[in-house]
């Protein structure tokens, strides 16, 4: 078994880009698997230089069997995502309550350094989660080098937006082999398939899936260009939803926090 449970301690405020409503940048309140994937690949590539594009692709692959990460107060138990009375909850907090207590905002002006004037006199609001939490999730590791990365000197990673300016620092607190109960707790089989309970990862939607919760359109973007390129967009059953037991789970596999059909060629 080579699933690992990763526990990160949050050192700085984090902003997980979600929507922009005009001048408001809203933050997500958990860390999606693809965001964590990006941060881990970055941190690994700073430590272990890749020779060429192929090697970079290998590294990217090594990290892609990964779940979403959820907040935890004690570094042991996560605030479980769920729906109650039609509202999204993390543990006992409704999304609204969680935001009220743990999400703050900065008001900023974009400054033009040459003229030193506020750019367009623009004031914008930038949300972030305050550093009160541990963040916990699972990853499947096959490569020995990657194991060393987690087991050696505890890596620091930068997650989400504005990481150049004092946001996003997480430090690995603990990494250990996940036990069966951890996998069960994450509603995940050893080969990365979902079991039929409350979702902790997104589930690719098919019209025959019956569920209680919410449907979301999730775009996958390549941020290496100024105008991010849309590489994929599909409908997913949201995290926290409960899925009817009739779906054929064997055709799904976890990929960056999403259960994807025919996952061998996502």
């Amino acid at each position, binding site marked *: 078994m080579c699933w690992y449970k990763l526990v990160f301690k949050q050192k700085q405020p984090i902003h997980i880009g979600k929507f922009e409503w005009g001048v408001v940048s809203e933050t997500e309140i958990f860390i999606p698997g693809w965001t964590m994937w990006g941060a881990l690949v970055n941190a690994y590539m*700073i430590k272990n230089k890749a020779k060429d594009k192929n090697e970079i692709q290998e590294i990217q692959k090594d990290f892609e069997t990964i779940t979403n990460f959820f907040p935890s107060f004690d570094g042991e138990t996560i605030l479980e995502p769920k729906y109650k009375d039609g509202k999204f909850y993390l543990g006992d907090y409704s999304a609204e309550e969680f935001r009220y207590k743990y999400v703050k905002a900065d008001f900023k002006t974009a400054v033009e350094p040459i003229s030193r004037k506020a750019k367009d006199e623009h*004031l914008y609001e930038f949300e972030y989660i305050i550093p009160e939490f541990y963040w916990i999730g699972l990853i499947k590791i096959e490569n020995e080098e990657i194991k060393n990365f987690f087991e*050696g000197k505890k890596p620091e990673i930068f997650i989400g937006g504005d990481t150049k*300016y004092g946001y996003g620092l997480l430090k690995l607190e603990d990494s250990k082999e996940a036990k069966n109960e951890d996998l069960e707790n994450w509603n995940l089989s050893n080969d990365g398939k979902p079991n039929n309970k409350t979702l902790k990862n997104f589930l690719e939607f098919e019209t025959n899936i019956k569920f209680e919760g919410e449907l979301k359109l999730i775009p996958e973007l390549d941020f290496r260009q100024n105008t991010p390129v849309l590489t994929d967009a599909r409908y997913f059953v949201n995290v926290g939803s409960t899925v009817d037991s009739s779906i054929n789970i064997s055709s799904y596999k976890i990929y960056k926090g999403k259960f994807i059909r025919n996952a061998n060629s996502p």
Partner: protein
Amino acid sequence: MSEKNNVVKKLEVYALATDPIHIGTGGYNIGRVDNTIVRDPITNIPKIPGSSLAGTWRYYVVLETLKDIKDKQPDWQDIKNENGDTIGEKLENYDWKNLPSSDIKLSSWKRFVGNQIMRIKCAGQDDTPDKNSDSEENTGHCGHCIVCKGFGFSKRDISWQGMLFFSDLNILFFPVFTYRGTKWITTSSRLKEIGIEEEAPSENKIRTKQGDEGHLNLGWLYLEVESRHTFCNEIKICNKQENISFTLTPEDVIIVPENLFSHIVNSNLEVRTSVSIDPITGAAKEGALFTSEAIPRGTIFYGEIRIFDKKGFEGLEEKLKPLPKDKELEDALKDSKHFYETLGIGGMTTRGFGRLKIELIP
């Protein structure tokens, strides 16, 4: 694949405010103050955001570089005629070809090949992010110089976060008036940030070097001196060029409880009232009195800059080659920090606000 330790270089930043510092929130009104400053929303303590520090430093590195290389930069045509498939390769092959030997002393970071096409536009916001990075028009970020590679740039065809990460500058020592002269307050958690372990005083009590003053006033607060602190480091902010140094001795330092720090800082900020002048008549605008708050001069800030060695990313995008070495970026920051002493940071720099003395410690 080789494992290298110490891949991230951390630079400690100490900054002394030689003017009041005003980093505005952009006209967000609270109570009677019109021009409020940026605060940490959790502690409510004013700070210099990492983005402000990075924005000004980016500008200063460009000023420092162009000052020495402006008349040595080759024509775009000459670069274009050089061998190579990409602009990056052409720049490497050209490599300051006509630079006279007397200029060999130009420091390595200023000679970075990409600087051959650095321009003042690399300092600010890119006004043409919709153009490709290899566009020949003299516009927007060049995408090749040490500033673009170090601080990041974003063009239509490529977006690069850069190699430099700036933390906020937080207040480490804050000056307050006492009947024994000006003292600098701090807390045990702030000292811990710079590696000094010091026990926090009990509730509503303070610690001094002497420890036997009985009571001491911090501004208008009157507090009991509990005991001595054992803090024995001197904090030195110096500038080699002008040979000015500022030293904070342990006698200058008072340790206050965490919960009092924000309170004392906020009640001892500088508040200035000014009159808006009508730009056409030159007369005071009627009823246009406004107040601004600022962090007082003498405040000492602390923060960190991390330099990431991102050699591992060169294979991801041909256009990123070559990346500057971490040492080159470190030298670029060091050689340009003197601009903070004349041009400063934040708002109202033309009214005597914003100058800083900065010390960078690897």
